[in-house]
């Protein structure tokens, strides 16, 4: 059953876009981007149980790395994106180390401070980063990952999103993935069965940051203009976490489900009602978040799974 749904979804995803207008495609691009970011967060936030609220820092570090490499050395983003990942991954290791000492909400607060500091650093290292005015990406062309039509961005993001899902599906069965899940469930028990919890936390955070950093490059090439205060924002970090939790943290599909539910609605409402009643779409976002967190542990994916399992049990009699 799941397989047919997936194939259908893939066919739709591949075939539908040529028929859509630029705006709708832009909405889809953003949806997929947030889905990808949510899945990257999920590695450490969902599977690892380390609730980071500073992931926008990795987004920013990734975006700035590839952009600076492009501006100063002409390095094309197709290569730069990997370096973005490595730089972000390095920062992720720092966060991983912090998670060794800080638990739960303390860790979350620590990551918030970390992200704020990152934003401040990006703003004040003017000579390197161009300061608070940011950097404009002026190049055009396929080799610069800058396209003139949304549809190309769409297929690029689709590739990354599909990769994300496949990666998570592989990851949750892998030896390392099991270690992260175990330490999420019970850190002491994980140590007791031979898992090096410290190493796992640091490595998990690095992987998550690496993936997010790559997302930063994609975002930079899509939006053409990066600034510390519009990129490394607390509400980006919370949105990444919220999307994944709403969709279902700790599962390969949580990111997509959460993004599909939260992103298009807010973007369409924004467009329809404009600035003043922008409050409305945000209100909806807040209410959905509240309802899912309180009523559906395991997010929407967890909720659906439980319903399906109950149906199976009825069917069996």
């Amino acid at each position, binding site marked *: 059953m799941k397989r047919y749904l997936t194939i259908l979804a893939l066919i739709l995803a591949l075939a539908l876009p040529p028929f859509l207008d630029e705006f709708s495609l832009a909405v889809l691009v953003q949806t997929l981007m947030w889905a990808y970011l949510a899945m990257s967060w999920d590695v450490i936030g969902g599977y690892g*149980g380390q*609730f980071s*609220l500073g992931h926008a820092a990795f987004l920013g570090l990734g975006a700035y790395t590839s952009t600076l490499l492009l501006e100063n050395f002409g390095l094309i983003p197709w290569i730069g994106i990997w370096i973005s990942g490595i730089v972000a991954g390095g920062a992720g290791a720092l966060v991983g180390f*912090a998670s060794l*000492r*800080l638990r*739960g*909400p*303390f860790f*979350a*607060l*620590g990551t*918030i*401070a*970390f992200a*704020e*500091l990152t934003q*401040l*650093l990006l*703003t*004040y290292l003017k000579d390197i980063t161009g300061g608070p005015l940011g950097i404009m990406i002026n190049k055009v062309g396929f080799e610069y990952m800058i396209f003139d039509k949304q549809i190309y961005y769409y297929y690029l993001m689709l590739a990354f999103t599909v990769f994300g899902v496949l990666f998570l599906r592989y990851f949750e069965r892998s030896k390392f993935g099991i270690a992260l899940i175990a330490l999420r469930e019970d850190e*002491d028990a994980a140590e007791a069965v031979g898992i090096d919890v410290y190493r796992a936390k640091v490595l998990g955070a690095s992987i998550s940051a690496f993936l997010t950093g790559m997302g930063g490059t994609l975002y930079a090439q899509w939006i053409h203009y990066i600034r510390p205060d519009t990129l490394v924002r*607390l509400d980006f970090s*919370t949105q990444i*976490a*919220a999307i994944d*939790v709403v969709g279902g943290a700790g599962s390969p599909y949580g990111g997509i489900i959460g993004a599909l539910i939260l992103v298009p609605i807010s973007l369409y409402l924004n467009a329809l009602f404009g600035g*003043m*009643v*922008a*409050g*409305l779409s*945000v*209100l909806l*976002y*807040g*209410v*959905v*978040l*509240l*309802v899912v*967190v*309180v*009523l559906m*542990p395991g997010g929407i994916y967890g909720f659906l799974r439980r319903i399906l399992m109950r149906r199976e049990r009825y069917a069996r009699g």
Partner: protein
Amino acid sequence: MIELGAYSQLIISYAILGGVYALTALGLSLIWGVMRAVNWAHGDLLMLGMYTAYWMVLLLGIDPLIAAIVAFCLLGALGGIIHLIAIEPVIEKPGGHEATLLSTLGISVAIQSIALILWSPSPRSYDNIYKGIYLEFFGVRTSLAEAIAFSLSLIAIFLTDQFMKRSRLGKAIRAVSQNPIGARVVGIDVSKIRLFTFAIGVALAGVAGVLVSTFYPNIRPLAGYIWDIASYVVVIFAGLGSIYGVIFSGLIIGVLEGIGAITFTNAFRHILVYSVFLVVLLLRPQGLFGRALRRV
């Protein structure tokens, strides 16, 4: 060169803010201490306190300090409602503490957007008699509004502390924050205590909002955010379980911000505060005054 007079002037201004930080942090510290919940909406509730004062002064012409009492009751009731829909249902389940982060985030976002829709993003302020009068001591000038805000914050903290030590409810709250299982065993209704604690915490934030509104020129729906971070910095700095530690930390943070604003550029003070925050968090997670956290 900036003369000493201007230095102390600025630091005093920030220290006064520190007093209000302390009051807000007190609410957060209570909530955290009793149920290990994070109230993401605290700053927004403070913002509602600001607006309560604003509308009461504008519509009813009453003294802002009377509005403080109204805000206490109003926000307290709202806090109770928020607790019942966002905290209580998840707090005892596994992962409940992180869940409260997100559920109160949802509340925060909802409050902000409703406030935006109702009151528009433009900043407001109101005139009151306290603003215009200035006090001078030791060569430093502050407005009466700031001085009253500071003193009332301290008084409110003192009253809360007395309440915690002498009243039945207060003692029950302390019991739950020190040992929830033991408290249940001796017959304390832990969920009721949680409800009251959350309501009181929010009510204190409301009062803080009223106090701030007397001198803060920037009453707007998105004002809450600033107080959030500063308050949590104070809470972490002070650590769990210490009411007076909160005052001390509030003052320190306030002064730190002031020093940062003078010695470096204005926004560098943020870097200073966040760095100190991280250092404290990493080196002494239980804060300066808190009880140590247990292991295994």
